[in-house]
Structure formats: C-alpha cells, structure tokens
C-alpha cells in the first residue's frame, strides 16, 4: 500500500534518478517499441472498419460521379467504365426534380434553423428559469417524438392527415364541404411534412440548450435582475452571448440533419404527389434504385449533398466570426 503510493508519487521524475543510464536506455527503447505496438493494436480495428465503410465510400462516391459506371464489375473488358467528366452534374442540374428537391430541402433547413432552434432555445430557457409549471412533463412531451422510430412517426402522421384520419374528420365537423387534398395538391403536400419536422426535432435542441443553461450560474441572472434588468434583457444580453457557441453547433447539426430527412418523407409521402415532396436524398435514392439504375447521377447527387452541407457550415462559421468580431 505504502510502496505503491510512493511509486505513484515518483511516477514522472523519480525513475530516471533510480535506474542507471544504460539499463534505462534499453528499457525505454523496449518500452517505446511496446508503446508503438500497443498503439497500432488499439487503433487499428476502429480505423479499418471506419475507413472501409465511411471514409473510403465517401471518396469512392466522388469518383463514381465522374464516370458512366452502371452496375456490374468495375474492371471489365466487355463494358469498360468511362470517365465522363462533369456530365452527371450537368444532367442533375437540368433535371426539374433536382430543383424541386433542392427547394424542399431549403424549406426543411429554414424550419430547422429558424424554427426548431429558436423554439428549443426559448422553451429551454423557460423551463430552466422555472417560469412555468409541470416542467418534467413538458420536457418529456417535447422530447419523446425524437426517440420513436422515424418510420413509425411518418406513417402515423400520414394517417392523421390522410382522408381517413382524424384531421379530416375534425375538419368535416367544422365545415362539411371541406375536402382533404393536403397530400394530393402539390402546393400543400409539403406543409404537413414541415409541421411534423418542426414538432419532431425541437426536442433535441431543447435538451441541448437545457443542459448548457444548467451550467450557467443562476446567480448571474439574479444579480442582473436585482440591478433592474428585465427577464428579456437578461436573456438577450447575458444568456444569449454565453450560449452563442452552442447555438452555432446546433445550427450545424440542424443543417446536416436537414439534409438527412429521408426516412420521414419516405414514410409520409414517398415524395408524392408526382415527386413534388422529394428531397435531395430521396432524389438520389430514386436515381439509384427506382426504375433503371443511374449510379453516376446518384453519386453526383450524393456528392452534391455533402458539398452543400459543408458549404452551409462554412457559411455559418463565417457569419459567426463576423458577428463574434463585432461583439468585441
């Protein structure tokens, strides 16, 4: 017990003085070799799996988007894969379904960044400042949708808004002449989707902001209020600047999450009517797996999705630096 403690105490500086030089050198080089070997052993499995199924495919996708590869073996003399430059991207940009998908993705990003995040922030503030009652209950009610399978949520809400669902029944009681064309009219088909997205993911940001608000000393706010600040001014001038980093992180998550809205839309509308509720990921899926496969186009779309999310995040970082700079 005592000896062990002494060894711990000497850990950093003690050993060098105790062991003679020559012994120490051979020992250290042996230890160094063992250290390297251990490093490789510990890191290798994770790196192998991750590079094989994530990193490599991401680059592979960019490569395939520049070819006319359309299934079958990659290297065959019968039907060699040809480099086609940017023609898949040109095809994508000319496709009317590309602009429809991009437009719908833009709506989703706007709802996420300017809907989910502000709502999540305000509700987290309200709950953490104890401005309302039944806080645990409300927190659960807002958060629980994110836990349930997206597919289940999608089908459930599709039923709710469908002609046989309760929404139609209730509208009929108010106005018997009302006809439910929500999902058949291309103009309105995105509305239920956006409502569900707003409801479903606000909980994530609520939780993120709640956790970060709890780190702020409540006395900071109390002191400001004693100095005559209103709740609103305290929020605006003390809390908001303190959480700006978290807000930017949330926005990054929201943007990359918005481009991943595949499952919900797949279950709610499958892109219909006439692919008017398609999003980029669904557009990619259709290019690869619906009808005749066009892997070149599909890979161009997936490369575009990655590039778009990186560009948006870079833009966000740029805005953050500008705004952050002005505050100082």
């Amino acid at each position, binding site marked *: 017990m005592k000896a062990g403690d002494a060894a711990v105490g000497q850990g950093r500086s003690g050993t060098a003085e105790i062991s003679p030089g020559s012994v120490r050198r051979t020992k250290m080089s042996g230890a160094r070799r063992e250290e*390297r070997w251990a490093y490789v052993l510990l890191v290798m499995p*994770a790196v192998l799996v*991750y590079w094989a199924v994530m990193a490599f495919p991401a680059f*592979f996708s960019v490569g*395939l988007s520049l070819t006319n590869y359309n299934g079958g073996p990659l290297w065959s003399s019968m039907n060699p894969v040809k480099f086609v430059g940017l023609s898949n991207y040109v095809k994508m940009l000319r496709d009317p379904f590309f602009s429809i998908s991009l437009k719908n993705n833009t709506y989703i990003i706007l709802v996420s960044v300017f809907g989910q995040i502000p709502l999540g922030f*305000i509700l987290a503030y309200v709950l953490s400042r104890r401005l309302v009652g039944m806080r645990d209950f409300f927190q659960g009610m807002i958060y629980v949708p994110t836990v349930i399978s997206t*597919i289940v949520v999608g089908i459930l809400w599709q039923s709710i808004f469908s002609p046989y669902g309760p929404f139609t029944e209730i509208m009929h009681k108010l106005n018997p002449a009302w006809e439910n064309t929500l999902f058949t009219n291309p103009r309105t088909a995105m509305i239920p989707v956006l409502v569900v997205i707003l409801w479903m993911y606000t909980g994530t940001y609520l939780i993120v902001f709640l956790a970060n608000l709890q780190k702020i000393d409540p006395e900071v706010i109390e002191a400001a209020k004693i100095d005559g600040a209103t709740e609103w001014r305290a929020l605006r001038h003390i809390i908001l600047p303190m959480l700006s980093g978290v807000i930017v992180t949330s926005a990054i998550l929201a943007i990359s999450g918005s481009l991943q809205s*595949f499952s919900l839309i797949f279950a709610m509308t499958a892109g219909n009517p006439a692919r008017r509720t398609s999003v980029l990921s669904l557009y990619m899926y259709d290019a690869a797996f619906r009808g005749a496969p066009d892997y070149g186009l599909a*890979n161009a779309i997936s490369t575009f999705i990655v590039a778009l999310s990186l560009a948006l995040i870079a833009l966000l970082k740029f805005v953050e630096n500008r705004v952050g700079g002005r505050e100082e």
Partner: protein
Amino acid sequence: MRRETSRLTRVLLYSILLTFTFMTLYPVFWLIVSSFKTTQEFQVNRLGLPRRWTCQNYPLAWKIGGFGHLFTNSIIYTVGSTAAVVLLSLSAGFAFAKIRSRATPFLHGSFVIGILLSVEAVLIPLFLMANAAGLTDTRLGILLPYIGMGMPKGIYLCTEYIKSIPDSLVESARIDGASYPKILASIIAPMAKPVATTLAILNVTGVWNEFMLVNVLTSKTSLKSLPIGILKFSGALSSDYGKQLAALVVGMLPMLIFYTIFRNQITKGVSAGAVKG
C-alpha cells in the same frame, strides 16, 4: 404594465407547450384506441372509442408482418453494433488520448470529420461495394456499416473523456509493468463507464430506428429489421387499417419503454452527443 406583458407571454408560452403536448399525446392516443377496432368499425367510426374492443389485430399483424423475425434482427443489429462501437471507441480513444504518436492528429481528425458524414453520402458506394464483396443479404454486411457509422461520435466522446483521466494513473500502472491493453481493461474501461453508457444509448436509438441502410443493403425478408416490416403495412396492406395501426403500436412500444427506463441517461447522452464537427 410589466405584469400585463408577462401574463401575455405566459399565455403564449403555455399555448406553445400545450400544442407540443397535444401533438405528442393525441396521435398516440388515437393510434392505440383505433388499433382495438376492427377494420370494418374503423371505416365508420374513426374518432370515437371502439364500440366493441377487439384484440385480434395484434396477433394477426404480428403473424403477417413476421414480427418475431423483425424483432430478432433489430436486436442483433442494435446489440451487435453497439457492443462493437463501444469497444472499438474505447480502445482507439484510449490510444489517441494517452499514447503519444505522430499519427494521432490525422487519424483522430479523420473520425471527427465523419461526424458530418451522413448515411446518404455513402449509401450508394456501400451498396456497390457490398455487391462486389458478396456481403449483400448477410448480417455482417449490415452490421459493418452500422459500426462504422457509430465510430465518429464514439471516438470523439471517448477520446475527450479519457483525456480527462489523470496521466499519472496510466504512468504508475506502466511502472508496475502493466501492458496498455491491460491498463485499458482494468483502469480506463471501468472509469469510462459514464461515457460508454452515453455512447451506447446514442447508438441504440440510432440503429434501432435506422431504416435507409438496411432497406438498401438487404432484399431478404429474413434479414430485415423492424422499421421495414412496419413500412410494409402502409404499402401493400394499407387498406387493412386495423392491422396497420396495430403494427404501428408494436413498432412504437420498444422505444417508449426504453425511453421511460433510461430517460435521464438519454437526455444526458443527447446533450453530450451534440458535438461540433
């Protein structure tokens, strides 16, 4: 004056909170109640309570949907990938945090960037690679991508957490002659239990609900997971409302139970998982 505005704000706040509550509770209530109606009764009575409660939808949906298989597969994918993600992240995170190497910035960085990579970015190449490697329609072909997808967050969280464990603990164990794997197993892993729990919970919810990958990587019914089985009811069987709604309840319950048991850990995990890329 201030009192008035604060009352107005209060009304506004409560109405937002109640809207969320209504949107969560009512669909679930409607779903559960409707799943106890026969399809014939559902056609004429869509809002009210069942006039005659029937449980027959459940066993029929279970049988038609092959839910026994689906549950088994979902459990295999979830437990298998989660165990692997936690194990691999802990060991690589330990090496990144405690063994000095010039390779660390590059290797660790490659994982952190991956936080921003979505399934969409790799779906089609993965499908083509699985075809080429003969891994389509195998469990391994589905498990490997799930493990890879969990790694970025896993590595990030574990490295950060293990960094906060004092170096002196590792050094003194080294002086006592312990090997690195031994130190990982006997010192680091027990101390990293909180981060391992967080990671496991994030991974379980992610994989259990995942749909796109397993949908693309397997066409065999015997390998499909729960979300795909449920979706089948809204396609081919969509006019059979009774069974469709019962299938939705069955699909919803596991995660609701998981949430009620691990509520606190889940909320902790979500806030820890919200990491910047």
